[in-house]
């Protein structure tokens, strides 16, 4: 219970700090929490993967989750849109709140959750279809009946891909470079107008130039969306994120949130020795 209280206090105190904090390009936008976990515990069968995670995701901000391999970063980010439901043996306690509602509550449609909380994965995974069809797919299966091409153009523009593909929209998405494919996947996620975008190591398969393009794009997108990114690249978290959550594995290998704060503080003057050891490369 003490641990739970601490976790919640940690998250809440951080929200209070960031509410008056400058930084990034989205300072003029509201930054109240749009999503949060409260005392979240996750198990895969008997193995506890997460313990007592309380984390608030502010709007119009980029929140990075960092930590060593196996600490539960991906498990945590996938809880925000119920992607773990599909894994055998998954169960959880605690709450995952989105816009005031527990998304694991009764009567909640996980498909609708995933429409409102989009996800981009480690490896670009475009459908083997045209560029246009990749972006139009989501709106179409969600029953959109308006002008699809407007949505496609808007999403591709938002993903900073339009100028590169506007003359080749009917070409296969698989002809694009890795960086372009990943931006196409971001456009595909944007086309269904989510409110939060989850990114699970979105640049790990990209070269440095493509990585920087995605990072620039993230800063742009943060004007309209809340973004949560899991990354192994600490420099990337330092470059793009407004706030950073640090996770570690406990002795029983359950993932725990050990520090959460403004990125500049986490990377220059972390409060926890374990954070210091991890980000300075002396542990993990």
């Amino acid at each position: 219970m003490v641990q739970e209280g601490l976790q919640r206090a940690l998250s809440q105190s951080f929200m209070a700090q960031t509410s008056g904090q400058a930084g990034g390009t989205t300072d003029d936008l509201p930054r109240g929490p749009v999503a949060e976990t409260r005392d979240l515990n996750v198990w895969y069968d008997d193995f506890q993967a997460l313990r007592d995670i309380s984390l608030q995701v502010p709007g119009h901000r980029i929140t990075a989750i960092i930590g060593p391999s196996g600490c539960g970063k991906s498990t945590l980010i996938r809880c925000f849109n119920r992607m773990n439901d599909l894994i055998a043996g998954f169960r959880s306690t605690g709450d995952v709140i989105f816009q005031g509602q527990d998304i694991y509550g009764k009567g909640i449609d996980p498909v609708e959750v995933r429409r409102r909380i989009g996800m981009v994965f480690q490896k670009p995974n475009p459908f083997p279809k045209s560029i246009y069809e990749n972006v139009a797919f989501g709106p179409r299966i969600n029953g959109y009946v308006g002008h699809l091409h407007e949505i496609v153009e808007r999403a591709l523009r938002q993903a900073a891909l339009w100028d590169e593909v506007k003359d080749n929209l009917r070409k296969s998405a698989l002809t694009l470079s890795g960086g372009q494919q990943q931006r196409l996947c971001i456009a595909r996620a944007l086309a269904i107008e989510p409110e939060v975008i989850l990114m699970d190591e979105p640049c790990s398969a990209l070269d440095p130039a493509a990585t920087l393009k995605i990072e620039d794009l993230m800063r742009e997108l943060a004007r309209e969306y809340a973004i949560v990114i899991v990354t192994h690249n600490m420099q990337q978290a330092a470059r793009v994120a407004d706030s950073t959550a640090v996770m570690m594995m406990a002795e029983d290998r359950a993932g725990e949130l050990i520090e959460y704060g403004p990125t500049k503080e986490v990377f220059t003057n972390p409060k926890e020795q374990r954070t210091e050891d991890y980000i300075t490369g002396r542990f993990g």
Partner: protein
Amino acid sequence: MTRTAFDHQLAEVQEDMVELASMVETAIERSVQALEGRDIELAHRIIDDDLKINRKRYETEEKCLELFATQQPLAGDLRTIVAVLHIIVDLERMGDHAEGIAKVTLMLGHEPPIEPDIDLAPMAKIAIRMLVGSVDAFKDRDAGRARAICDEDDEVDALYDKAYGELVTHMVNDPETIDRATHLGWVAHNLERIADRVTNICERVVYLVEGKIEELNVSKY
């Protein structure tokens, strides 16, 4: 996981900084000694040695920049390198102040001292004590000690006020002493600036330990 090579490099820049501080301490001690003894030869040696101090500062600075470029230091490592980068600049400038005192010795040559003589040794003693203490505070990561050292700057300021008043009195009473008194005023000013620069070092120690950049002592000069 360890970062053996990086840890070695990080230790090296700190050792370089401590060595630079030791060179500067010697320069200050000798500058006052040369002045008191009108030791022209020693004054020349201090001026020559200042080149070694400058070289040491630039060598250490290059090592720090290399660490930024190649190791992407974070958290405590980042603060350590940033602190070293700032401190070596202050140390190098303190060396320049010692050189300035040595040049006054050359200017005074074998002219007789002002009677009664102005005793600047206590100022030098406190400034050196502050310098040594600040470097110890750095080595021990002792922010409390760094803060306490800054308070000593007020003593140096008070001694400077006293020396300044005495020098003006000399100049008013005996215009023959104006040149010599002015030169000694420069020495007092150099010592006062050395103590001010120690407070800068102390600020960097507090930053290193606590991650906060704050002004610890606003000198009246």
